[in-house]
């Protein structure tokens, strides 16, 4: 069976995928099925701008049980050398799971409306 030029192109895509997909790529230029020929691409998607409530963390109260780190669906809690360092707001969607799983007696994470931080951002930007 002879291969059409389109097929040759497709085979080329299969064998030699260009990880750098051009924004103006046509449908023939893409790997099929929505495949991205790289791993860990979720890090390129800043989900933090979905957030309406923000976790506020108290370093003093935190006992480093790592429940927040374990349960966070976006891996937004940062841990170094067994110690929680805080939350990466680039990815935190504000789901509040961390505040919910933080032990009741510890209560190191509280969720606050994003509106409370509007003035801070304005000061920062100003």
């Amino acid at each position, binding site marked *: 069976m002879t291969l059409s030029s389109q097929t040759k192109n497709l*085979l080329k895509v299969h064998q030699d995928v260009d990880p750098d997909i051009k924004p103006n790529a*046509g449908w023939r230029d893409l790997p099929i099925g929505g495949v991205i020929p790289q791993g860990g*691409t979720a890090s390129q*998607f800043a989900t933090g701008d979905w957030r309406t409530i923000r976790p506020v963390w108290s370093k003093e109260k935190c006992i480093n049980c790592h429940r927040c780190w374990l349960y966070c669906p976006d891996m937004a809690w940062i841990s170094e050398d067994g110690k929680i360092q805080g939350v990466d707001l680039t990815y935190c969607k504000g789901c509040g799971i961390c505040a919910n799983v933080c032990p009741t007696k510890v209560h190191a994470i509280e969720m606050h409306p994003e509106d409370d931080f509007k003035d801070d951002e304005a000061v920062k930007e100003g």
Partner: protein
Amino acid sequence: MAVAVEIQKTAALTGNEAAAQAMRQINPDVVAAYPITPQTEIVQLFSTFVSDGLVKTEFVAVESEHSAMSATVGAAAAGARSMTATSSQGLALMWEMLYVAAGMRVPIVMPMVNRALSSPINIHCDHSDSMGARDSGWLQIYSENSQEMYDNLIQAVRIAEHPNVLLPIMVTMDGFIISHGMENVELLPDQAVKDFIGEYHFPYPLLDVEQAKTLGPLTLQDFYFEHKREQAEAMYRSKEVILAVAEEYAAISGRKYGFFETYKMEDAEYAVIVLGSTAGTAKYVVDQLRQAGEKSGLVKIRVFRPFPGQELSEALSGLKAVGIMDRADTFSTQGGPLYLEIKAALYHAANQPQCINYIYGLGGRDIDPPLIRQAFMEVKDLASGSAAEAGPTVRYLGVRE
């Protein structure tokens, strides 16, 4: 290549047994399945092949068909040759994942035993299950008998996995009528099937740790459309693959397949078009009519997705009238699914035959020679213009009035 033909083994098998034998010879890496009447036997038999060590398949007993298709998609994405099997409500429960399989371009091969959809609950044959999935992006091949089920399944592996295609495919047979009916089936030697299907290499296996990749990602307004455009093109490309694979298969088996089969159509003036097991009974009726001097013919559709519209339109040109038999209704008030496809295909034809639709056999209602003969006679009257009155274009055949 003709050697394989000589050493085929004849066995008396039900459709389900023939499908299970094909799966044994295909020897997929992973099968994830859930039982449902009338398909249960296929995976039940296959699971004994697994426990007897006749195949090297990882068999995953899941808790539902949604999970069966999910696990099969996952296995296929990992790079495994993956299969499952289902029927009726099972296919309905797979719905969400059918589209995922097609969109992710994983070439899953699935025997699908046609059975009516609830409600009312019914375990017998009609095509409402697979017809409901006709726009899910799966290829669909319909089988007339156990032999075709066996042959189509083996060819399906090659079609789905072809780099021009990479789409999932379901191969159907009529529930109970074929799935539980025993007849002689010619089986190829195991080695011949192994050589025919070859090794499977998915171009984007997740288990390739050297080259990490992301499968099934979020794709929004920027690229979703392009992926769907390519998916549509794969369906167009699959047509030449289906014919090329059929040709190769004929070389090892001696059995020829195409998009559809024509029966006594050379000089036919009117014809009936069917899917599945009804074709066998309809051929018998055509033989009787031919003996009586009637110029009647039959077309049996094998490949429903992609739909061979152009080819069919050419095959029907010159006929004065056709009766299109649907074992499913669309409840659209426009007729059955096969009728709608064929009418659309004929829209651009120079010589359009008149079309009437027969919806028949729902829930396993028997379709016997007198009923098919009645359809032929009505189509003949339409062809000769002697119909007393035009009558409805969509007719329910064999229903108690």
